[in-house]
């Protein structure tokens, strides 16, 4: 298999999944790029770590009173054979950002994540409809306070501004009319559920899950005018009209480009900054309409496009903390079964700036280079290096075996670094990176005296160094 083919496959797996081992890349490259894309898109029957198994070892992942539900998701990210499904779930979690701080209920957030997993690759209309009925979203953006004759515009505003069209494509009156259409879309037992959330109450017997309830008596049945159309609209009609808008196609396409192809500036800057690749946005927008708003078809178009395969976009995304973490844990193989350490491990992504199920606001996280500040970078490098240099992890031990099995022992520093980079599927790094890594290995060899580090520790050290390279922080 050519180096170029392996590099392209590594690029695909970093973007459509959470990376792959060198052996997996060989197998995937052998079956071909387009076939691998189809395999990634086939997410109907994923095999992941059994939920029963997770819940047996972690009863709190069943009761899900707190944020520990995010750790259940991390298990899925690192154990699934359908990584695109989890990646798309992460994509929507970043856009439809909903947080624990207000809900104080891990189960309803877990339900929302499960909804993204189920509908995230389907058609955008269904996804928006499910989002509008999602109990976590209803409480998060106060649609339970949106009443006939006394509207609360919070959900109506964000539906247009952050979830579908972007600012500049609708009026303040459109927000009001959309909000009127969503009156009566609430959750059952609103008063008690909201009070329990406000008080962070776990009494008397833990949390109670939320369920969607439509109250026709609280729905505004009057005529509405929305985006130039008039009618006795309900929420479904508003979503239909939103999905027909070219602005929606462009907005979702730009999000998709930013998440899967190359970092775009934060969303608030979009009205003032053109897309990095306007032609790519046009291609994706066309796929949106041609396929009846299908997210899966948009992604098929994206992964098979020249703009995605181009060398110019390799490593042009900064991995989010969750992506970085899932990628590392997948390589180390340290969670073959549920272990107590998952919660502390998962908390590391919080220290890196991404607390899953608890985004900083409805705007979600600012992606791209904003992930990297000096504190977060130290956390990121330390996490990756410590984990990938730990010979006790089965995945690291296997990679060390591979690094050492390719030679006759006494591997020269340059060769050692190349093999370590290859095991981390990073065969394409800058000369500066490679030279720095070689220099560190040489220094270590000198410091170690005549005998140096034992062979396996030396190989693990090379993996640890490679994980500290700038390219490893990027996808």
């Amino acid at each position, binding site marked *: 298999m050519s180096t170029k083919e392996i590099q392209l496959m590594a690029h695909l797996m970093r973007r459509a999944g959470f990376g792959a081992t060198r052996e997996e890349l060989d197998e995937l490259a052998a079956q071909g790029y387009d076939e691998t894309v189809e395999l990634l898109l086939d997410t109907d029957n994923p095999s992941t770590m059994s939920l*029963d198994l997770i*819940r*047996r*070892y*972690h*009863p*709190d992942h*069943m*009761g*899900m*009173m*707190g*944020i*520990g539900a995010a*750790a259940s998701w991390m298990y899925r990210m690192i154990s699934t054979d359908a990584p695109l499904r989890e990646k798309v779930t992460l994509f929507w979690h970043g856009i439809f950002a909903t947080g624990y701080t207000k809900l104080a209920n891990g*189960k309803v957030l877990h339900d929302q994540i499960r909804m993204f997993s189920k509908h995230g690759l389907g058609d955008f209309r269904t996804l928006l409809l499910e989002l509008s009925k999602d109990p976590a979203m209803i409480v998060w953006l106060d649609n339970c306070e949106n009443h006939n004759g006394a509207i609360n515009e919070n959900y109506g505003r964000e539906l247009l501004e952050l979830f579908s069209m972007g600012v500049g494509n609708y009026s303040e009156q459109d927000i009001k009319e959309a909000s009127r259409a969503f009156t009566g879309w609430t959750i*059952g*037992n609103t*008063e*008690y*559920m909201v*009070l*329990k959330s406000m*008080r962070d*109450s*776990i*009494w*008397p*017997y*833990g949390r*109670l*899950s939320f*369920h969607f309830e439509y109250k026709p008596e609280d729905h505004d049945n009057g005529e509405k005018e929305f985006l130039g159309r008039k009618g006795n609209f309900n929420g479904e009609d508003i979503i239909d009209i939103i999905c027909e808008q070219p602005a929606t196609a462009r907005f979702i396409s730009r999000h998709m480009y930013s998440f899967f192809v190359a970092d775009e500036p934060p969303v608030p800057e979009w009205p003032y900054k053109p897309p990095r690749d306007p032609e790519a946005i046009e291609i994706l927008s066309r796929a949106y309409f041609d396929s009846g708003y299908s997210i899966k078809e948009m992604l098929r178009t994206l992964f098979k496009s020249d703009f995605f395969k181009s060398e110019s976009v390799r490593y042009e995304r900064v991995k989010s903390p969750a992506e970085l973490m899932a990628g590392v844990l997948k390589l180390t193989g340290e969670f073959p079964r549920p272990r*107590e350490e*998952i*919660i502390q491990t998962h908390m590391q992504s919080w220290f890196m700036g991404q607390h899953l199920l608890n985004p900083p606001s409805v705007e979600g996280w600012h992606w791209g280079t904003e992930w990297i500040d000096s504190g977060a970078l130290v956390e990121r490098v330390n996490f990756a290096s410590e984990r990938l240099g730990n010979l006790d992890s089965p995945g690291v031990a296997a990679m060390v075996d591979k690094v050492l099995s390719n030679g006759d022992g006494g591997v020269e520093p340059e060769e050692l670094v190349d093999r370590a980079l290859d095991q981390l599927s990073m065969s394409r790094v800058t000369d500066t990176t490679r030279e720095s890594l070689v220099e560190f290995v040489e220094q270590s060899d000198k410091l170690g005296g005549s005998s140096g580090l034992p062979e396996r520790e030396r190989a693990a050290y090379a993996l640890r160094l490679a994980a500290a390279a700038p390219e490893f922080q990027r996808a």
Partner: protein
Amino acid sequence: MTLAEAEVREGRLSYNRTIGVTAMFGRGLYYPVDVAYDRDDRLYVINRSSDADKRGVRITVMDFEEGYYGIFGEFGEEEGQFIWPTSIAVDREQRVFVSDDYMNRITVMSTSGELIGVWGEEGSGEGQLDGPNGLAFNDDNELLVVDHRNNRVQRFTPEGEYAGKFGSPGSAEGLLNMPWGISLCGNGDVLLADWGNNRIQRLTAEGEFVASYGTPGRGEGEFHRPASACIDDDGYIYVADWGNHRVQVLDGEGRFVQSLRGQATISKWSQEFLDTNVEEAAARSRANLELPVELFGGDPHEESSHIERFFWAPSAVKLIGGRLYVVDTCRHRIQVFDVAGSG
């Protein structure tokens, strides 16, 4: 079968009360996973807690009337501390034994929480442990330990000396797949919750196959990941059907008798909470807590997350003084049922 006998069969269990309340620390329960009792019928409840908040790891000492006698034990790796406490048993000398799945050891304490000893080491050799779970004492005061990742049961003296083992991995009769709870029958046989094989197995004290109850599923007499089983003097078998979030009763032949989804009411400790939090109690009184199960697509986990009176992951069933105690893990309480014809 006479009419009276039929009535006893169908109504083998009748709800008595709920005890406990959610509490991360101190009086109350937090993800309880097992219960044992001493000669004074005091209850020792293991709280597994949340991995995100270790303060809840402890043993709560209480009784049927919700008398509170304190807590002991805490999270940690030191002797006398626990990481993943899973099962508890009290021997005839009134010593409390706790298995720790994570630490692969058994901790022995007095009923007031003083450390007596710790034994056990990780491994798959004789006397070594890989995931100790269910505990039960036989008539010789030997401790049976479900060594679940080794798919076997081992016998030890209370001091931790190895005394024997049986069981090996598989799905054929007598073989085991990640077993969880264990209890003794009157004749010395054992009942094992063969979790991964979705069945209850009855084996002799030497591990010879006697009977198997249940098949995988959600119907009557079927199980999904059963966690615990016990048998009464009349031969009725009670099963914590963990993955189906219910308790099932079988007769001595293994035939289905009764299924319970849970009937929890407000416990004494819970009522005290509501009495002092009147705003929350008022909102609760206006809520409809009896939601139709049809809302939740036939998924018992979803039903239990919404309907408070239902069991949610019942992890252990224990017969204590003619009553069945069901440890209702994700609702942080114990539901207690009277057994027909007992006491």
